């Protein structure tokens, strides 16, 4: 995936966005928190601590972002991200989508059809994310995990979820 240089520079300011995200999160927490009763120091209401946390987060967000703009960064180039770009070297949009859809498939199939199809769908969708995945291999993997998983969770651990059902009220 090639990006133009200006765009690359923009997403290269990782800490700027990190600070910005914290700032927004803090603002949201503070605004919502101030709608709850704050109370006094002696008798604190439910809104006191969250609002205080929100304000602290705003301040932290500002200082993270400010440090990135002042040029010295914060020296955290050896973090998880590695490098200063937000996106990894080879973005895996399809794999990310598959991983996030896998629990959603589990919810959908689990709610209407039971544990057996839910397990199969969950593993199947997740496995499609791998770039070397083949239909055959994916189906085999999903079948194996389904047999093993349903045996373990339904028979041994007695998770109260019907194995196979149909609830028509879609």
């Amino acid at each position: 995936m090639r990006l133009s240089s200006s765009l690359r520079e923009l997403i290269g300011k990782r800490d700027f966005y990190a600070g910005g995200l914290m700032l927004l999160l803090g603002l949201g927490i503070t605004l919502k928190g101030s709608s709850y009763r704050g109370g006094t120091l002696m008798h604190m209401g439910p809104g006191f601590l969250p609002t205080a946390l929100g304000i602290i987060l705003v301040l932290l967000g500002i200082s993270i972002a400010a440090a990135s703009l002042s040029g010295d960064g914060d020296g955290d180039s050896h973090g998880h991200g590695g490098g200063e770009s937000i996106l990894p070297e080879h973005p895996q949009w399809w794999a990310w989508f598959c991983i996030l859809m896998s629990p959603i498939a589990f919810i959908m199939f689990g709610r209407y059809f039971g544990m057996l199809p839910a397990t199969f769908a969950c593993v199947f969708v997740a496995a499609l994310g791998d770039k070397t995945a083949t239909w055959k291999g994916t189906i085999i993997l999903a079948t194996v995990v389904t047999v093993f998983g349903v045996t373990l969770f339904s028979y041994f651990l007695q998770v109260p979820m019907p194995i196979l059902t149909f609830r028509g009220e879609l």
Partner: protein
Amino acid sequence: MIEAALSGLWYGFGVALEPHNIMWCFVGVLVGNMVGVLPGMGPLATISILLPLTFGMKPVGAILMLGGVMYGAQYGGAICSILLNLPCHPPHAVTCLDGFPMTKQGRGGVALGLTVFASFVGASWGITEMIFLSPILVRVALQFGPAEVCSLMLLGLLAGSTLARGSPIKGVAMTVVGLFLGSVGTDLETGSERYTFGMTELDDGIELIALALGLFGIAEFMNSVNQVAPINTKYTNVSIKDMRPTKADMKRAFFPMWRGTIIGSLCALIPGTGPTIASFVAYATEKKISRHPEKFGTGLIEGVVCPEASTHSSVQGDFIPTMSLGIPGDAVMALLLGALMIQGIVPGPQLITQHPDIFWGLVASFWIGNIMLVLLNVPLIGIWVKMLAIPYRFLYPSAMFFVCIGVYAANNDFFQVGEVVVIGLFGYILLRLGFHPAPILLGFVLGSRFEENFRRAMLISRGDIFVFVERPISAVFVALCALLIGSQIYFRLRGAKADLEPAAENIVSGVPPELAAQRVSTPAE
């Protein structure tokens, strides 16, 4: 004092040797050992996946098993580092430096054998420390009022977030996010709902399991999917015969092993400096005092046993503040505390007296578990090595299923499976922005207790915020907090590295930065 500790230990062995407890301990260390070997699966994800399975169990069995996963994974991680040059688990990153060259020279078996031995020594020392230190800590901590508890928690949270990996200020931000997430749901004191946005499913707060599995399961999978290189299994043929060290090896390994153990146990006492920092410091120290530092990195046995002993001694030592004060030092400990809380047990200094079976049973099980691990690792090394070949494309979809069913089984509620998706996406964004999500869990687990104690302290002092510096013990904690923040700012202004790890990383410059992170990378071959 010593007598009480020994009789407690005796009682603990009685608890830990009950058949079902010994079985759970075995299951724990076996699973831990296995996932420790598997690249791309950490103890955090594993403990979170196993957590829902423990709901039906007795608290003792549950905590023995989850604890077993934690230290079992440390044994497995060493195998990965030495034979494959894959530091899948951060504490073992330095072990690669001398462990893998030894493997290339055909002495990988010896390195493994001595590692298992050094690990056992380190762990035993950590356990001994726990036996004698915890009761003393508890006796002090029982005098604490809400103000002291509050400032101690503050110290723990600050240390946990600033001394751990990465940028200190980002760590603090993560802790604050964690504290906030802990406040979602019904407020315990006033009963009003906070940040539920009308969703009744959130009334009980965010589910710990959903949070842990989102941050350390889904976010990690998104991070490593399609990034994992095929594993080089060229050197993995190791038999039991190869593992027996010679007398000369034993002699050379003896003192480094003890130095590592001591360093690890000291690191365990400072909250926030977990096994990762302990192993880096141990390696750096060993290199510094060695008569031929230039030979490090070419396959010296000292460079393998010292960090490994220190890792294990620190892992066991980490349980001290967790079990005796209720203040976890890192995310794994926070998760274990969370497991106790789910079982209805309040962590804190009263734990040892109120639930002696849990505390002493856990201590005794450490020894039993460590002996099991030594016995397991020697004959099973061939099987572990074969497990290394399991490709990631089979691993993560299966793990996704365990994530889904685990979160569902916690409350039989599909809503929480949805929660895990949202948290996972959020966690991945945080990862990409250079945050380490571990302190979130720390803040989350301590959140409600922190708020409760803060409120109580304010009520007792009639709203006087200075109570925290007026009471002497609390003032010490506050002073330590200030010292911690002050030193971070000071080092920052001077341009020097404040946290220990990058400093150690400079010394061991052989490890590329991304190897130190919990991520599987290409082997350097």
